């Protein structure tokens, strides 16, 4: 296991209730810096819910209560003094459905920078090019930056959304099934891109696609019914899982 210095996020004993329903039953999980961690499990197992506790997006849902600690750089993000706005600048999120704003591609990418009050055209231009290059979509859109982002295909939209997150330069990127609405070619492009981003970012990825998890992640966490069943190196999980449930799930013998 990585030593404490390398841990960027540590979640300990996280419980989450939607009203009375306990969706997360005490999750303790550490994320190492600059790893790709995949969260896998059947639908409704709590993996997306857990992902959303990491940038406090669950706060937006009425009736949610959360107990336990989530530490980012050693600070509890559920402490009363936490500024969720600042937190979400450090932890970016990409959603399942591509959700670009109905603005131009350019305005989509600079959205976070404009929020930060950056007005200098040169800085913005540069950030647009860098982020779109990182998201491997620059060549496809460089001539139509002023077109609406909604005119792009689903896969392109998703990469613009990733560029939009990258432009803010977060430490951690959360991806909630980013390729499940996309065709295999677009999915492949996004997977390759994530592998390139690994050097600079900590990536946490929820996926239904086990091949995807095994192809790109360093660590894999298997969730089942609100519990974390197993968390280990991806190789171990897929080749030599310790728990019977994990084995059943990855071999497709599950439920």
């Amino acid at each position, binding site marked *: 296991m990585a030593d404490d210095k390398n841990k960027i996020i540590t979640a300990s004993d996280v419980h989450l209730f939607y009203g009375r329903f306990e969706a997360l039953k005490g999750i303790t999980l550490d994320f190492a810096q600059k790893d790709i961690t995949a969260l896998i499990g059947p639908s409704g197992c709590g993996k997306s819910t857990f992902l959303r506790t990491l940038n406090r997006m669950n706060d*937006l849902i009425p009736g949610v209560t959360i107990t336990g600690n989530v530490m980012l750089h050693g600070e509890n993000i559920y402490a009363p003094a936490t500024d969720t*706005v600042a937190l979400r600048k450090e932890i*970016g999120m990409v*959603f399942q459905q591509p*959700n670009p704003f109905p603005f131009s591609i350019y305005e989509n990418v600079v959205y976070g920078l404009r*929020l930060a009050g950056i007005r200098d055209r040169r800085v913005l231009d540069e950030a647009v090019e860098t982020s779109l290059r990182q998201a491997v979509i620059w060549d496809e859109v460089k001539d139509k930056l002023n077109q609406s982002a909604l005119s792009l295909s689903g896969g392109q939209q998703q990469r613009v959304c990733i560029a939009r997150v990258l432009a*803010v330069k977060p430490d951690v990127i959360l991806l909630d099934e980013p390729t499940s609405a996309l065709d295999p070619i677009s999915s492949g492009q996004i997977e390759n891109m994530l592998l390139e981003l690994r050097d600079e970012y900590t990536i946490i990825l929820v996926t239904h696609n086990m091949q995807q998890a095994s192809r790109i992640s360093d660590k894999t966490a298997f969730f089942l019914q609100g519990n974390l069943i197993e968390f280990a190196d991806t190789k171990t999980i897929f080749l030599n899982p310790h728990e019977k449930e994990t084995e059943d799930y990855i071999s497709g013998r599950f439920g």
Partner: protein
Amino acid sequence: MHDDIKDSLLKKSRATRSEQRGRIISLTCTAIIVLIVISIFYFVASKGLATFFSNKVNVWDFLSKSIWNPGSTDSHGSPQAGALPMIIGSFGVTLLSAIIATPFAIATAIFMTEISPNKGYKILQPVTELLVGIPSVVYGFIGLSVVVPFVRHTFGGTGFGILAGTFVLFVMILPTVTSMSVDALRAVPRYYREASLALGATRWQTIYKVVLRSATPGLATAVIFGMSRAFGEALAVQMVIGNAVLLPHNLISPASTLTSVLTMGMGNTVMGSAANNALWSLALLLLLMSLVFNLLINKIAKRGRI
């Protein structure tokens, strides 16, 4: 055996027949409505255009002259039908009331959808529905007994005029503009808000940078819809505007609108006379304006479709 199947396939089934009946009924109803609309249009147009063709009023004079006395003729022998005072009055009250109503309506809509959806909905929804349901004569009565004295005391003059009309129309169109703005804001997908918040935007930044911006076509539609209601409102405006067919030189001098001159004059003219035709021209102008408002709304709706 075979014949049974053949028969049943070749014969129209009951379901098919009843579908045909339904189609005929709905087509007939549609045709009747279309016919009514066309005949109204034709009637108003034929009457309204008679001013220009039979009574030889110059169209430009109609739109730009300010002496309204269609019963008598000018030095050229054509009726004095200068509608400029009413045109200015109508556009004045419409634009001013829309300008005042828009910020209130959008602020209320933001409160109802973004800030306090539960409370806002519970309180404001019945209130707006109630306000829509109040008859315009009641608005006019309140305007006459409250707004006009208020304007008189605060701004001077008689109190009658464009300003009083603006205040009354402001209250009258507010519920419409508000509820349509609420619909426009509700139609903004949740995932725009999530995307914005996840990028570190505050709620307020999300509202004005994403929600309002994506809802702009809908909000514009709401405002134009309110304007078209204000433009067409007759009774309440007539009660507070002062009904002087003069070019208004300020907001508190008695003025008139297209609708107020129509309601005042329609009982006092003889069908077919120049004075009567001139009123129909005003009606035609109103009709054309509501057509313009509708076209605008359609155009915005088309452009704003996501």
